[in-house]
């Protein structure tokens, strides 16, 4: 091999090795940080893993928002019009959090199906329905319509 050629080979090997390692790390981290979305009926059906970081979403049920005596911990129920689950969150709720509006909570599912949220999202847009929530509601509604026809 001429020195020029050798140089080039060294460079290419270095680059490939670097890229390979980086891609490996990145994809591993990617898998660990994927958060799947579940709707309340999926949680009730036991499809959502407990203990893993996931997101759930639905409409906040009317009259379900309860504040604990410390004033910061809030419990509320979210529904996809099929099933309802309870979400607990400690902290300040977003400005647009409202009963009856769609929200998304990020957090982990406890053993008793109580969802402990680390973050609650309502959009900064009055027209906003988080698309996951919209889809989930539509799906459950279609399922409901289906069973309704069958009966």
């Amino acid at each position: 091999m001429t020195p020029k050629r050798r140089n080039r080979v060294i460079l290419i090997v270095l680059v490939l090795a670097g890229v390979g390692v980086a891609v490996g790390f990145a994809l591993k981290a990617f898998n660990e940080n994927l958060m799947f979305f579940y709707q309340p009926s999926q949680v009730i059906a036991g499809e959502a893993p407990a203990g893993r970081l996931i997101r759930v979403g639905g409409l906040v049920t009317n009259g379900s928002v309860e504040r604990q005596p410390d004033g910061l911990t809030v419990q509320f129920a979210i529904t996809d019009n099929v099933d309802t689950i309870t979400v607990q969150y400690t902290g300040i709720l977003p400005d647009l959090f409202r009963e009856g509006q769609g929200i998304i909570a990020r957090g982990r599912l406890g053993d008793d199906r109580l969802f402990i949220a680390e973050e609650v999202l309502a959009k900064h847009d009055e027209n906003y329905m988080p698309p996951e929530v919209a889809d989930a509601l539509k799906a459950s509604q279609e399922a409901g319509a289906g069973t309704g026809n069958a009966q």
Partner: protein
Amino acid sequence: MIPELGHFALILALAMALVLAIMPMIGSLSNTPSWVALARPLAWGQFTFLLIAFACLVNAFLVNDFSVTYVAQHGNTRLPNIYKISAVWGAHEGSLLLWAFILSGWTLAVALFARQLPDVMIGRVLAVMGMISIGFLSFMLFTSNPFARTFPVPLEGGDLNPLLQDFGLAIHPPMLYMGYVGLSVAFSFAIAALVGGKLDISWARWSRPWTTVAWVFLTIGITLGSWWAYYELGWGGWWFWDPVENASFMPWLAATALIHSLAVTEKRGAFKRWTVLLSLLAFSLSLLGTFLVRSGVLTSVHSFAADPARGLFILIFLCIVIGGSLVLYAWRAPNVTSGGEFSALSRESLLLGNNLLLIMITAFILLGTLAPLIYDAFGWGKISVGFPWFNTMFVIFTPFLVLLMGLGPLTRWKQQDAADLVRQFRIALLASLGAGLLAALPLLHEGSVYAGLAVMLSVWLTTTLLLSLRKRLRHRQGFGAFLKDIRARGGGSYYGMLLAHFGVAVFTIGVTFVTLFDVEKDVRMAPGETLELAGYTFRFDGVEKIQGPNYRADRGTLHVSRHGQDVAVLKPEKRTYLVQTRPMTEAGIDAGFFRDIYVSLGEALDAGSWSLRLYYKPLVRWIWLGGILIAIGGLLAAFDRRYRLAVRRDVAATAAPPGDALATEGPA
């Protein structure tokens, strides 16, 4: 009447763009100088008509002309005048108009300031910009006309989104668009060069200052956006890895790679094809960002109202522009001669490494941004990618990037002796290792390793920059050379590089410290109650009702003291805007060089007590300070005198090796 004038001006601008896209290009290919010469007057015409259209829309907002749908939706009689103007680009239609207007501005700037370029080249560049302009103008006219009328005329307008009623956001979009659209100049230069089949170093030299200026605007725009999110969204975050933020960050990364790669192409004639590809990529990513923000395929904190018809239009436009340019690339690039051999250790190879890292980061951000879409498209479920992943990407790649940034300026072009390089940087290595250890030791707890790493990287970067400066000055008779440089306003690109890289060091420190050591607490406080956080005492003095020009608010008062000394009085607000009736959190911030104290009001609990969120944010200002330094560095580089001189020299006698000593301190 005036809105119709605006509409008509838009149509005329489109007509100008059509002629601009066709005549000079055909003229340049068929050797018809008179057709090529049309380019400049047409650029003038297009700009004038868009200026008229833009002024008409501004006027419609100022006089509250609610017969214009767009004004009826986003204007309001009670809106302060400055926000009436910024409301022009507060939503989809108007921001498109701003976009087209800025594009015509850049087109005119190229026509005016690139006088030294050959006419054929100018004609082609302007023609390509005209093609892009056609896309945006027809998009506006056919799907999103800002001048459309509404009937019956509403008595009052829908008001501007309260989040946008803020000075930072009034100027953020124009800056960002200046950057996005500015990259179209680099794109057009690349296309013009590909059409001509002449990818020589003079092309790189022409393109360089334009690319740098666009990149500076992008830097300012992103920095402003981050600053705005920090104080206006009310929850103390300065970057959310939101799709829209990513949409602005990806072109920035690509443009950063591009300005470095352009340097190599200009100085050494190497990386030509890669540089062309990056020019295409940077602008393509701007367009992709536009698509993502406006089509509604991804949702984010600040996307515009989704409309699939608009999305389809942009997608088709995207395919024509990006697809077309890549076809041209595939056709022309194989014939480009590669030049400038270099060895495995040389400034070229380090810059190649820098480019690869930047493009990899871009690719991963793209992956993270599109992953929800990919999963949805294949029916794998609904997912989102957590921001920890994006952060991880940075922790993985940035140290290497900074390492290279330190080595680059000390390394020679073409070939560098490894032992010599080690001798040069060993002081920097020792200093940074020492500083890193020092920083890590006293903080022996979670995160100290990262703090140490950040300090190490920043010290490494700073010391290598100083070493490079010393070397440059020594070769040029010491400190006197520095003064001479300043007096002659020369060496801009070298000093700009120093400053911008130093900005990265400042930024790194800021990001790391605010991420690791910020203190955040959600509390419930009754009036008169006090609380300790990070050595500061907060006393809550209750909440009063106040009345703003177009909102009502609850305003809290907090006295902050430290060791009995008053530090600040913070007044966070919870506003309700009268028209859009939505609550908004307005944070109370005491800004400082070393720390910010940040308070936001939650909600009223019983008996006059409120929920509050208190933050202590160390060094958070350094993030934006870094951004500002980077931007100033870019400006220095862009206005380096030698571009003007060199372009003239190129035209006189083409393509001599640059032989430019100013930006390369290395001895021949």
